[in-house]
């Protein structure tokens, strides 16, 4: 809504000297104009530009330049698509890409499934569910670094309590180095990741479940739908938007965060748990090749954008 400052001033008594120089008066008048909205948005817009858009664009331009801190002789010239061309023939890149797909898909599926089961249980409002809810959410409160070290210790081949338990119940013949065996390292890391992050799905799905009217289940009871049918035909479709948002956020988190794998395996043994984010991180901060790391990050960025777009289209979230 706009108003004419002149008409406001015309209707008031003559302005004193203090009134003329009082900044609050000018702010008050400005707040009545359409520019006020833009002024209020300005601080957050500047913040986003400073900490998100600038680094992103810088990363993009970095991917087209040579920048190796341990090879100053190469300079920082523009190299156009050199890094991207190198990527095509880089075996580690392809291994990382495949591992990323396995890591993200398996973790999201497990986290979603466990998260959904927990959310459905907590939505029952039975005695004790509030206390249980806090317990279930606890892993999510732990920083990745703490969770990673905790599990590394629990799965330790000599001291680990899990090895001890598995041997005692007869599931294992002897203590096993889970993270040292290429056939189990990825699976073990995925289980740690799923344990740590399934409460994210629990939290969002529980919030979604609270919004499903109970009358729908009563109607479905009378219509003869059993528990599985109710889950498949009522609950999940009603949670579609929440699921889509949660999956996209989680995929972005999983693709972009190398911290847990860095602590548990550092991408090994061999390259068996090497994922793109870890590869980009190590390329930048171990090999000091910021140009190539920038190109890897750009590819991750493009993959994530494409995934989000395709996923939203396929899940038809926008249609309801």
């Amino acid at each position, binding site marked *: 809504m706009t108003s004419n400052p002149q008409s406001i001033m015309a209707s008031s008594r003559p302005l004193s000297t203090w009134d003329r120089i009082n900044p609050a008066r000018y702010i008050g008048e400005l707040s009545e104009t359409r520019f006020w909205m833009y002024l209020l948005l300005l601080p957050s817009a500047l913040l986003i530009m400073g900490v998100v858009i600038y680094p992103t664009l810088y990363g993009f331009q970095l991917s087209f330049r040579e920048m190796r801190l341990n090879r100053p002789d190469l300079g920082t010239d523009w190299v156009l698509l050199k890094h991207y061309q190198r990527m095509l023939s880089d075996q580690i890149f392809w291994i990382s890409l495949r591992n990323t797909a396995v890591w993200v898909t398996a973790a999201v599926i497990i986290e979603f499934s466990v998260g959904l089961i927990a959310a459905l249980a907590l939505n029952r409002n039975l005695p004790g569910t509030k206390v249980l809810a806090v317990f279930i959410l606890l892993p999510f409160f732990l920083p990745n670094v703490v969770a990673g070290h905790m599990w590394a210790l629990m799965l330790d081949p000599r001291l680990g309590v899990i090895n001890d338990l598995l041997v005692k119940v007869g599931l294992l013949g002897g203590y096993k180095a889970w993270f040292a065996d290429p056939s189990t390292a990825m699976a073990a890391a995925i289980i740690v990741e799923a344990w740590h992050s399934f409460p994210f799905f629990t939290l969002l799905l529980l919030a979604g479940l609270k919004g499903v*009217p109970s*009358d*729908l289940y*009563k*109607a*479905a*009871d*009378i*219509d*003869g*739908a059993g528990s599985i*049918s109710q889950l498949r*035909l*009522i609950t999940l*479709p*009603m949670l*579609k938007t929440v699921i889509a948002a949660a999956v996209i956020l989680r995929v972005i988190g999983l693709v972009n965060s190398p911290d847990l794998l860095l602590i548990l395996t550092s991408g090994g043994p061999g390259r068996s748990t090497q994922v793109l984010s870890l590869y980009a991180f190590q390329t930048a901060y171990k090999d000091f090749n910021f140009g190539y790391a920038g190109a890897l990050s750009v590819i991750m960025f493009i993959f994530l954008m494409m995934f989000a777009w395709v996923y939203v289209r396929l899940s038809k979230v926008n249609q*309801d």
Partner: protein
Amino acid sequence: MATLSIKGVRKSFGSVEVLHNIDLELEDGGFLVLLGPSGCGKSTLLSIIAGLEPSSGGDVVIGDRTVNDVHPKDRNIAMVFQSYALYPTMSVRRNIGFGLEMRRVDTSSREDAIARAADLLQISHLLDRKPGQLSGGQRQRVAMGRAIVRNPDLFLFDEPLSNLDAKLRVEMRTEIKRLHDRLGTSVVYVTHDQVEAMTLGTKVAVMKGGVIQQLADPQTIYEKPANMFVAGFIGSPTMNFLTGTLEQHNGGLALHHGSAVLALTDIEPGAEAFVGKQVVAGIRPETFSKGEGPSSLTGTVDVVEPTGPDTMVVLDVGGQMISARLGSRERPHPGEPMTLNVDTSALNLFDPDTGNRI
């Protein structure tokens, strides 16, 4: 179609008993309305009939089958909810046919049944839409379509018209009545709206505090309420309650209220026992007519409310306010005196101690 018997049904939530020994009978093809204010237990009773809520005691018998431990889907009932409870992600077609789909009815029979129900409710053109694309009245029809498509033994309606605007509510009320006349299926209908109860029900159960206050046909409920709660709950404006003393008068009985004497006719035999005692006379607003008569009340006009077809007049009779429904042409002015004659044949007497009808 089936009969419904409720025998001694009770319901407690912890130490709070919300239904006390409810007994009801509904004849085959009847329309039973559970009527009462919020919190009287009518919706809980409906949920117990549907099997959505377990009772704490007593029996629910549909037809000749006691269904206490029978799952809702096996009771052969259909329910229309206040919120309609349409599945938002399914089309109208699938909503209507969902009960048949779950019962594994083959596609062609299902499509036929959906088409018949949609045709009956005039929603054939809406079948491919989602509930979110429908108006309140259309959703209501879809909810009814979902109920009738299965040919259930019993329809259960839980305040189905509460979410509609006044005009649509009247239209849908007529629609429900027409549907019941056509299908002849027994109905249990929960409402707090007395007009719905009076217009739809073949039998009305007025409830309060988890107890049925009166179970009778609508006319009896209106003309011969069992107690002062029923008398006050049914009718708009509400029944006038005039306290006075019952005396012998010209060989009959009369109610003395101040200087006014209302000669009573058509008195129930039990009234003789109250001669010389205080009683409460329940007088419907439409039983008043302007002018002197054998049983008149004189007072001062307090408020005049023309409604179009009638004029509602609030009269101050010795400090007690009396509502009277007079003809539309009557236009008294506030402050002026007015005498009203009472048709005492329609008058009800209540025991002031128990509130029960004498």
